[in-house]
C-alpha cells in the first residue's frame, strides 16, 4: 500500500502521461522490494487509473483525466484543452420540445415547459468522451438555433447573444449503466458503468437557464473543488 503511494509520488513528479515506466525488475531493485510486492503495488495503481499495463510490453502512465474545477467554471472545451488534449464537439440533434417531466423530477419545471434539447458528442484527442444532453429554456433564449450551438460553447452563446450571465449550478454525479445509444456513441459495451453528470444551471436572478445530463466515460474526467466549512 505504501509502496504504491511512493510510486504514485514518483509518477506525479517525474513522469508525463503515456510515458513508459522502467521495467518491473529495475523498479523492484530501485525500491528495494520483491517483484511480487512491486507487482501488487502496480496492480493498485492500475485500479486507481494511474497507470496502464500492457501485456508483455510494459507499464505506462495513464492518460490524464480532464479536470473540471468547480471553483472556476469554464467551458468544457477549455477544460479539455487545459490537460493538453485536442477538443472536438459534434452536434447530433437540435430540437424544440416540451418536457414531459418523466425524467425531470428534480428540475422543478412545470410539465409542458418548452426547451431546446441539444444533444452533442464530445471528443478528447478524437476519442468520444461524453454524450451531452442540454436543455435550454426557450423563454430564456428565444430563437436559439443550430448555428448558435454548433461547434460553440452554449454558455458563450447565451452570454453573447442573449446576455445571460450564469451565476451557479447544482450538480450531481452518479453511476449508471450505458444504454444502447450511449454505448454505441461512446464505443463501449452496453450496460458498462458510466458516469452520469447532471445539473441545473441558474442565472444571476436565480432563474433556471438550462438543465443538463451528460453521460461520461468513467476514466476520462475528475472533479476538483475547494470548499470552506
Amino acid at each position, binding site marked *: *500500500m*505504501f509502496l504504491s*503511494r*511512493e510510486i*504514485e*509520488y514518483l509518477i506525479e513528479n517525474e513522469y508525463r502521461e503515456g510515458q513508459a515506466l522502467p521495467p518491473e525488475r529495475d523498479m523492484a531493485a530501485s525500491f528495494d522490494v520483491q517483484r511480487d510486492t512491486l507487482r501488487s503495488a502496480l*496492480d*493498485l495503481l492500475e*485500479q*486507481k*487509473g494511474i497507470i496502464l499495463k500492457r501485456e508483455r510490453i510494459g507499464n505506462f502512465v495513464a492518460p490524464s*483525466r480532464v479536470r473540471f474545477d*468547480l*471553483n472556476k*467554471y*469554464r*467551458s468544457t472545451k477549455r477544460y479539455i484543452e487545459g490537460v493538453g488534449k485536442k477538443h472536438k464537439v459534434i452536434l447530433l440533434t437540435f430540437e424544440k420540445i416540451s418536457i414531459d*417531466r*418523466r425524467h425531470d*423530477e428534480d428540475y422543478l419545471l412545470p*410539465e409542458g415547459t418548452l426547451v431546446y434539447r441539444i444533444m452533442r458528442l464530445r471528443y478528447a484527442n478524437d476519442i468520444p468522451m461524453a454524450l451531452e444532453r442540454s436543455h435550454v429554456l426557450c423563454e430564456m433564449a428565444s430563437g436559439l438555433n443550430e448555428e448558435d450551438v454548433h461547434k460553440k*460553447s452554449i*454558455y*458563450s452563446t447565451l*452570454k453573447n447573444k442573449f446576455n445571460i*450571465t*450564469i*451565476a*451557479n*449550478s*447544482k*450538480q*450531481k*454525479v*452518479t*453511476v449508471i449503466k450505458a444504454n444502447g445509444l450511449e454505448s454505441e456513441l461512446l464505443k463501449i459495451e452496453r450496460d458498462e*458503468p458510466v*458516469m452520469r453528470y447532471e*445539473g441545473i444551471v441558474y442565472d444571476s436572478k436565480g432563474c433556471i437557464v438550462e438543465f443538463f445530463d451528460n453521460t461520461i466515460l*468513467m*476514466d476520462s*474526467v*475528475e*472533479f*476538483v*473543488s*475547494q*470548499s*470552506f*466549512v
Partner: protein
Amino acid sequence: MTKYREIEKKILEEIKNGHYLPGETLESERILAKKYEVNRMTVKHAFDALTEKGYIERSHGKGTFVKKKNFEKLDLDFDKEDGNTGITALVEWHGIMISNKVLSKGIVNGSRYLSDKLRIGLDEPVFALHRVRYGNEEPIAVEYTYVPSSYFGNIGEMDFKNVSLYDYMASFGKLPKKFNQKLRLIENAEKEAEHLKIKKGSPLYYFEFIGMDGDMEIVEYTESYIRCDKCEFRFTATTKKSLV
C-alpha cells in the same frame, strides 16, 4: 396536469414527508382510489409511474411498498450550506447511524508521498488510520486517513471505533475547515471490494481530500473509496466572474 399525475404527486409527497417510510406498505389501489376519490385505474397509473421512477416496488401477494434503496443513499456533498465536515456529519444529518471498523492504525515514517500531501518534512511522523465506514451497518466506504501526528498528543491510543476522528481533532483545535477535494470514478481494487462487499471490478467513487485548519495548516489527507450504489455526490458550482 392529468389526474394520475396529481395522484402520483400526492403519493410522492407522502413518501417525501415521511408519512410512508422506506419499506412500508402502501394502501391497496382500491383503498387509495376511495381515499382520493378517483378511479382505480388512475391509482394504478400513478403506481406504474412511481415504480418506473424507482420510488415504490410491487411484490405479488404482498402489495406495494416504498422502496428502500433510494432513501438509504447518503449524500456526501462537496459544498453544503452548513459546510462540509465529512461523512460523519452528513450521515448524522440524514438520521442514519454511522459506525466504524478500524482496519489498522499506526505511525508511518519516511513516506515521500504522504509528506508531500501533508507538506511536512520526510522525517516527521504521520499517523495512519484505515477504516471501513458503515451506514446502518452496511459498508459504505473504505477510508485511509493520514494526519501529522505531531499535532496530537495521544493519537495512537485513541479508540477510533467509537470516537469520531473529527471530534478528536477538534479537541486539539485542529479541525479541518477548508478542503481541497478530488473526485473520480474508478474500477474498484480487490481489497476495497472485499471490505465493501461488492463485486471486484464494479465502479467506486474515489474521493481524495486535503483538510486545512483555520490557520491554513494541513491537518488531514484522506483517500476514500465509496460505494456508488449507496451514495451520490452533489455539489454547487458558483461563478463570480462571467463565463467563458
